[in-house]
Structures are given as C-alpha cells and as structure tokens.
C-alpha cells in the first residue's frame, strides 16, 4: 500500500509548477476571469510547446506516454492554480474519441491540429430541452446527396467563439428509438449558417448558445456510423475528464487560510484565532482530503487498465458537493465584506472566496450532475433497481 503518486509524478509536478510560475501570469488569470473565456491562446500554445497537450498520448502518436499519476499531477496543478484550460479539456476529449472512432482522414487531419495547439474543439451536446437526458437531442441532420444539412440549437457550447470545430450530436432518424437515431459530426465553426450567441454565467464564465440554420457539411465530417451517434457518445463520455472541483476546493482553502491569518478580527485577534474559522477550515480540509483520495483511487484503477466508472462518479460527486459546502461555510467567515468583489481593495482574498462560492454551484451541474452521478453509483455500484423510465 502506498498513497504517494510516486517519484515520476512528483518530479513532473515540480516541472509543471515551474512552468506555471513562468506562464500562468496574473495577467493571464485576470484576463480569463474578466472575459469569462477559460482558454488563453498564449498559455495554450505554451502548453503545446512543452508537448503537454499530448502528455498522455503514446509516443508513437507524438505523445509523451505519461501515466495516470503524472497526468494527475499535471491536471491537479493546473486546477489548483486556476489555469484557463477548458479548451484543452474539451479538445483532448474529442481527439481521444477520434482516435477510437474517427476515420483515417479525421485522425490525420484533425488530431495533429488539436495536439499542436493550433485549434480547439467545443462540445455540442446539450440543447434547450435536453441536458442530463443528452440522448434526447433534437438538432436535425438530414442527408442531401453527399452532404448533410443541419438545423437546430445547442446550449452551453462553451468556447464556441474560439473553437475551430464543434463536436455536434444530431438526430438523423426521428422515428427510431431515442438512442438509435443519433449521429455525431465534427463541424467546422466557419461553416455558413452557424451563429454563436454569448451567455454569461453566475461565476463569470462565458458560455454560448449556438444556432445551426441550413448548415451544409460533407459526409466526411461524420464521426462514426449513421445513427451510431450514441456509440460515439459512450466513447466520448468515458474520456470526459472529471472536473477538478476538489482542486478548486484546495485552492479556496489555501486562499482562505492566507486571508484568515492576516485579517483582523474584533479584540485584536486574527480571523484564524476564532473557533468558528478553525472549525470551518478543518471541516473543509477533511473533505478536501477525502476528495483527493477518491480521485487518486480513480487514477490508480486507470493505471491498472480498469475503467473506473462508479469510482469516477464518486470522485466527481463528492468533490463538487464538498466544494459547494466548503465555499458556503468559508464565505461566512468573511462577514459583510464577503459580498465585496474585486477591484474593491477590501474584498477578502481579492474577492476569490465570493467567486468560489458562485463558481462552485456549476461544479455539481456540469459533466454529469450530482443526480446523474448518484444514479450511476446506486445502479452500477450498489445494484439497486433502475429508477428512471426506460428509453
């Protein structure tokens, strides 16, 4: 038994930290949160120059062949420091999916552009009427000769305004059962008929709605079989990187501790001298430790060649729920000033506690809501009977 990530991982972590010290400037972080675009081309290409966009890829495909523990160090440090890497996350997911189910041409033409940092890809799954029930997508793709014509609307198409492609889930057979009438496309964003409308969020991130009107693409943009879109989705969902809510919680803990050590409290004490603050910090620290362990178990199983489905759901569920709870409790320590935001100079911890409180809300929603994770744990982990209606 060994709970360390190992020497290779720790050495790599040190290298990642040095990289972040150099490239993750305050300007990069500030710009990301000011614009809400959690992607920065300069930073992204610096990652590419290190070869880290392909860090987990096998050497024969131009990657560095890093193991799950090294990748854990890389993604943990990025999340802990608040690096804007959402574009990397979605793009690598698509690259991985193409590697499994893409055509030879797609693999040759698209994957190198992703891994070199030239382009990013956004995800076109959710629609106004289908979120958790993603297979209920209604965006229509109809065949016309060698082409497909796409009409519909997607929501939460985050980074559509920066992406070169959208990985688009469409309905090609409205008569077939829900999961058997879907087809996936990789659509260039410069195709006529695509409109991107920004949507602002509670945590300051920018996402988008995207509208597709008479969008014509060649059949070569299709990924997987016609009406085989759900099979593609299954691959893509398995590659979905678990969001790093637990690292965000650790980052928040550090920020609150630093603030509490210097923030004056009545009676000449510091905030950290108060039982209420010590209790809230200690509670959040316990949860962050458990969240870390659930995440490391997932990496360990992956390192053994196993697909940690239930364990991944547990890590996601626990990490995000604990982050939300911690953010709520820790913000309380700031009192009235907790509502202040940057640039108010008296905003506690530069306004980051309040920001974490707002941002935490989305972590229990995206990448499979807490309810979806609980259903996976209950049905696949505990063997409880399926609760949702079939279909």
């Amino acid at each position: 038994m060994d709970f360390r990530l190992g020497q290779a991982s720790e050495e790599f972590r040190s290298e990642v930290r040095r990289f972040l010290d150099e490239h993750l400037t305050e300007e990069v972080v500030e710009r990301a949160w000011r614009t809400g675009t959690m992607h920065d081309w300069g930073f992204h290409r610096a990652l590419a120059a290190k070869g880290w966009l392909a860090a987990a890829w096998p050497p024969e495909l131009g990657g560095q062949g890093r193991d799950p523990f090294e990748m854990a160090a890389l993604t943990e440090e990025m999340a802990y420091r608040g690096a804007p890497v959402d574009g990397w996350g979605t793009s690598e997911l698509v690259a991985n999916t193409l590697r499994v189910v893409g055509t030879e041409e797609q693999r040759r033409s698209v994957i190198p552009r992703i891994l070199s940092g030239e382009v990013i890809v956004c995800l076109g799954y959710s629609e106004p009427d289908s979120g958790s029930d993603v297979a209920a997508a209604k965006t229509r793709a109809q065949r016309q000769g060698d082409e497909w014509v796409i009409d519909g609307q997607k929501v939460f198409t985050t980074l559509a305004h920066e992406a070169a492609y959208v990985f688009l889930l469409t309905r090609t057979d409205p008569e077939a059962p829900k999961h058997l009438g879907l087809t996936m496309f990789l659509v260039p964003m410069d195709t006529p008929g695509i409109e991107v409308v920004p949507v602002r969020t509670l945590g300051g991130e920018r996402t988008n709605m995207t509208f597709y009107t008479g969008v014509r693409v060649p059949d070569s943009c299709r990924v997987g079989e016609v009406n085989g879109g759900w099979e593609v989705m299954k691959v893509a969902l398995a590659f979905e990187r678990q969001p790093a809510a637990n690292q965000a919680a650790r980052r928040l803990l550090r920020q609150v501790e630093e603030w509490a050590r210097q923030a004056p409290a009545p009676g000449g004490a510091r905030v950290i001298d108060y039982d209420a603050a010590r209790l809230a910090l200690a509670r959040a620290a316990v949860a962050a430790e458990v969240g870390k362990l659930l995440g490391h178990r997932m990496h360990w199983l992956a390192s053994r060649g196993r697909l940690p489905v239930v364990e991944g759901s547990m890590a996601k569920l626990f990490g995000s729920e604990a982050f939300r709870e911690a953010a709520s409790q820790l913000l309380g320590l700031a009192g009235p000033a907790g509502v202040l935001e940057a640039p108010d100079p008296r905003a506690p911890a530069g306004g980051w506690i309040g920001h974490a409180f707002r941002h935490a809300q989305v972590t229990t929603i995206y990448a499979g809501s807490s309810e979806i994770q609980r259903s996976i744990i209950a049905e696949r982990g505990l063997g409880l009977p399926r609760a949702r209606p079939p279909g």
Partner: protein
Amino acid sequence: VDLELSPSQEELVRAFSACLAKESSPERVRQAEPLGFDPGLWRRLADMGVPSLAVPEAAGGGGGGLLEAALVCEAAGRHLAPAPVVESLAAARALAGAGLLAGPAGEGVASGRAVATLALGPGLPQLVPAGAVAEVVVGRQGPDLAVWRRRPPGVAAPNFASLPVAWLEPGPPAATVPGAGDRHQAARDEWLVLAGAWLAGLARAALELGVGYAKARHQFGVPIGSFQAVAHRLADVATAVDGAGLIWQEAAWAADAGLPEAPVLASMAFLFCAETAERAAAESLHFHGGYGYTLEYDIQLYFRRARGMAQLAGEPAAEYLALADKLYGPRSTGP
C-alpha cells in the same frame, strides 16, 4: 499510488473476517449485551494475535504496523465485535513504545490475559473505553505517561451503545514515564486511526444492510430502492463509506511510514469515519422504516455503537479544533 493490500495483509483480513463472521454474529453481539464483552470471542482473538500482532518483534510482538492493526479493527467494526480490539491494540503499542510491555506494568497484556486500554482524556475520574474489562489503563498524568493496574469492575457503566465503558477512578499509577506525555498524545492519535477503521467497517456493514433492505422491501408494488429519494441517499452514503475506507488506510500507512502529516491524517480519519458511521447507520435505519426503530432488527445495533464509539473521543468540535491546531498551529491570541 497502490491501494492493494500485500498478500500477508490479505491473509490477515481473511483470517479475522472468517473468525468474526462465526464468533461475532448478530446473535452473539446481542448475547454480549449489556456489557459488550464476549470472553469466548476475546480468547479466540487473543489466540490469533490480538493485541500483540502490531507490537514490534523486538518487543515480543508480531511486528505488524498500525495498518495491520487497523485492518483487524475494520473487520471487528464490521462485525460489531464485543471485544476490546481497538483499545487493546492501541494500548499494547503504547506500552511497548514506552518500554513497559515486558515489565510488571504490562504483565499479561501481550497474551490478552489482561485487557489493556487507553484513557483518552485528561484527569481522573474519566470514562474509559473498555474500562469495564480492562486491568491495565494507559493514560496521562500531568506531563507524564502513566499506567494504572486495577481490578476491572466487570460491569459497564450503563450506556446506550452497549460498549464496555467504565470509570477510571483516581489512584496511584503502577508505573509512570516522566515527561512522556507526548507518547500518550501519539498513542491517542493511533487510537483515532484504529477507531476510525472500526467505524468505517461498521459503516460499510450498515450500508450493506440498508442496501439489502432497499432491494427486498416492496412498497407501491416496487422495491423501495428503485425510488431515487432512497437510492440517491444510499449513493451518498456509499461514497462516504468508500472515502472513509481510504482515509483511515492513508492515515495508518502514513503513521507506519513516519510521515509528518500522520497526526493530521489521524484526526481527519477519525472525524470522517465517525461522521460516516453515524450517517450510514442512521440512513439505513431510516430506510428500514418502523422496523428499523424496533430492537428486533439488527440495524439498531450498528446505530447505537456508531455514535457510542465516536463519542468516546470527546466532543466532535473539540476534535476538529485539535485538528485545526495540527493544521494551522495554536491560536496566537485568545479571542
């Protein structure tokens, strides 16, 4: 990261689990109430190496570490073993560490003939875990580590957990180690890990009872486990139970490896395992409906012990504050 047990650790778990499944059935657990001690079970466990299996070989023990001790405690918690497994393993290590196990103060402890335990808090009198059956109590007296020898009362102070707790009355210790109060602190941290493992084992068993009942019990024509109001709460418990299993293992591993974060992890493990055990037992009890509230069903055995074992460390908030001291240092000023 390697979360696999070694073959010898696997064997240890297998052997104790098999023994406890037989010798610590719910019937035996009930029969051992209200004292919470089954002499036959204790003799079996002592024959298998409790409590000396986690004492260094140089001190005449089995050479196991805190992890091996905790694995046995987890199995004991799973089966609600009415035997002072946690207490005696922690006390034997403390006595060995202080060089007292082989001396008169530790007489009979290694073989299990004399039950040993830890007094966790300061001052006397205090309520001591396994105090009803313990002849040897390792505690603290001012700056010193102290060992009391006494005739165990043989009856528990009446308690809702059916644990063999009893008062340690003021009296002269049989031995002291001057200035070794920090050894008591270290022993208490080990007890936190072992009790955490015991509670995590209890939590898993309670979860399994709840899941089993949710599959078998039909209402409105379907198993109640098909209702998300039930299933999702059990999923939350299952997640916490897995987390509890990981954190006590990490704490035990860190202690054996001598890592500086071991004391922090000991507190964390105990706190999280204690909360998880109570939650697992309470949720499973709740999903049993009215039956769960009766004494005929087994879930109440878990519910009572979950809180009882956790309570023995003192006020939860106090343990959180102790953890904060370990994490952030003592308060600079008293507000």
